[in-house]
């Protein structure tokens, strides 16, 4: 099992405990625990199985189970993305493994990248979203909970299977797709009309950073990607969960806490997102310095969207306020001293 996947599983388990403990009263804790537990077990199985083929079958089963739970979208709508993802990943893997010219392995790399994007719900395979849908039945379950472990497993195992030439193409495509998701997600989180959609696009933008980090095949890139995945699981996902009640009540506030949350979501110092961005910029300067320039410009797009999302949190009270304080403290701690996180993943 890749050490990054083990670490992310532990963080996902902690995020689930947090969700059950600090969920708004409107959310059913039992439902969160049961569905979240199933998702966590599926993620653990994806990481633990011996081959990527079996991991794809676990992903297929998880996709069918997720489509079968009660939600506002139809079964057919929710089943399509995971099945298409598994199909593209399997065909990509097949083309990588066969005896064929190098070009065929490059097509295989295309299938792997496209399948990865489809499984998580990134551009160009955004899953349809309904504002009223429960968190566990919505596409955010893939973006914020199952996706991190799945992405690490697919990328690590795919990089092991790809020949050198196709491996370079795989990394280049991840960087390109990452930039697209960063730009689109950043602008859409700022300008889209619906608050739930804005949160979803903010996840997409964060995933853009992750893909860039995975694509930059140097240690700092992998470190940056891991820290962004940490910030998704331990920052953005729990903050989104807490904000759902205020979104439902259409409450927005402009208090200091909203500004601090916006800073955390935008990846400013001293939160963990800042360190991740510094590592990604350093990695891109090692590979191709103009890329760092592009990344720096695109990273500015987080600001307006994050201010909006910070306001959408409303004014958390009692248990929710404690939860927000805990999230911010964990993100500051990881931002100031990320070494234990990186060491646990052997990065």
């Amino acid at each position, binding site marked *: 099992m890749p050490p990054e996947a083990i670490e992310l599983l532990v963080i996902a388990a902690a995020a689930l405990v947090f969700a059950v403990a600090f969920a708004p009263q409107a959310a059913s804790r039992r439902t969160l625990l049961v569905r979240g537990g199933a998702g966590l077990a599926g993620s653990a199985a994806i990481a633990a199985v011996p081959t990527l083929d079996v991991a794809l079958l676990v992903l297929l089963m998880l996709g069918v189970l997720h489509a*079968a739970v009660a939600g506002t979208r139809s079964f057919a709508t929710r089943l399509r993305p995971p*099945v298409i993802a*598994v199909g593209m990943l399997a065909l990509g893997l097949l083309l990588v493994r*066969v005896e064929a010219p190098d070009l065929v392995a490059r097509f295989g790399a295309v299938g792997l990248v496209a399948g990865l994007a489809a499984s998580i719900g990134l551009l160009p395979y955004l899953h349809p979203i309904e504002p009223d849908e429960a968190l566990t039945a919505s596409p955010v379950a893939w973006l914020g909970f199952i996706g991190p472990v799945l992405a690490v497993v697919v990328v690590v195992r795919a990089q092991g299977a790809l020949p050198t030439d196709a491996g370079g193409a795989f990394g280049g495509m991840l960087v390109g797709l990452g930039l697209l998701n960063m730009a689109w997600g950043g602008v859409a989180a700022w300008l889209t009309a619906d608050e739930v959609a804005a949160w979803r696009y903010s996840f997409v933008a964060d995933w853009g950073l992750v893909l860039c980090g995975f694509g930059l095949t140097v240690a700092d890139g992998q470190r940056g990607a891991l820290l962004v995945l940490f910030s998704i699981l331990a920052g953005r996902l729990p903050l989104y969960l807490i904000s759902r009640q205020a979104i439902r009540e259409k409450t927005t506030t402009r208090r200091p806490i909203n500004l601090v949350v916006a800073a955390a979501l935008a990846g400013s110092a001293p939160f963990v997102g800042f360190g991740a961005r510094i590592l990604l910029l350093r990695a891109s300067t090692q590979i191709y310095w103009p890329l760092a320039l592009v990344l720096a410009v695109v990273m500015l797009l987080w600001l307006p969207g994050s201010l909006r999302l910070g306001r959408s949190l409303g004014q958390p009270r009692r248990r929710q306020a404690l939860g927000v304080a805990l999230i911010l403290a964990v993100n500051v701690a990881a931002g100031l001293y990320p070494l234990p996180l990186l060491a646990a993943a052997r990065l």
Partner: protein
Amino acid sequence: MIQPAAGIVVWLGVSLVVVADGRRGQAVGIALSALGLAVLAFVTAGAVAAAAIAAGGAIAGARRFVSGPAGWEILSPGSTPRLVLCIVTALVAFWVADAVTSGPVASVRFAVITAITLSAARVLSTAEPAAQLSAVAVVAIGVASAGAIGSTDPAVWPYLAGGVVAAIVGWLPLRSPSAA
């Protein structure tokens, strides 16, 4: 001659899943796909792998035989594009398996490409849960069979996992969309 024949049986089976709207047509399609892939699994990975694929396909086919829209409903009005898709996919898969790629298991490559591509297309093209779950069962045994490609001694785990997934998916209780 057994391997090419098994590959064609897989294509026939998955094409039936694509062009049939009734439960009987889909059940026979799943059974044919599983039969072809089980024969190929027997050749490449042994009896246990073949048994896992056959059992998974048989359970999925049996479940489909008793649930879903009644009848055969093969090539119902409006299914011409699906028929064309099946034929074009077979031609492209044959070209990729035989001419673009090389190696000892061309039939497995052909069978896996047709099974996964056509089943995924079926999931995209219909909103009927029974048809989608039939296609998912074929995707599962297709993905499991892909483990034999590029390996001289394929492990049995993917076949067992594929058989289990194919057997389970048809039994899941489905709920209608509702407000949160």
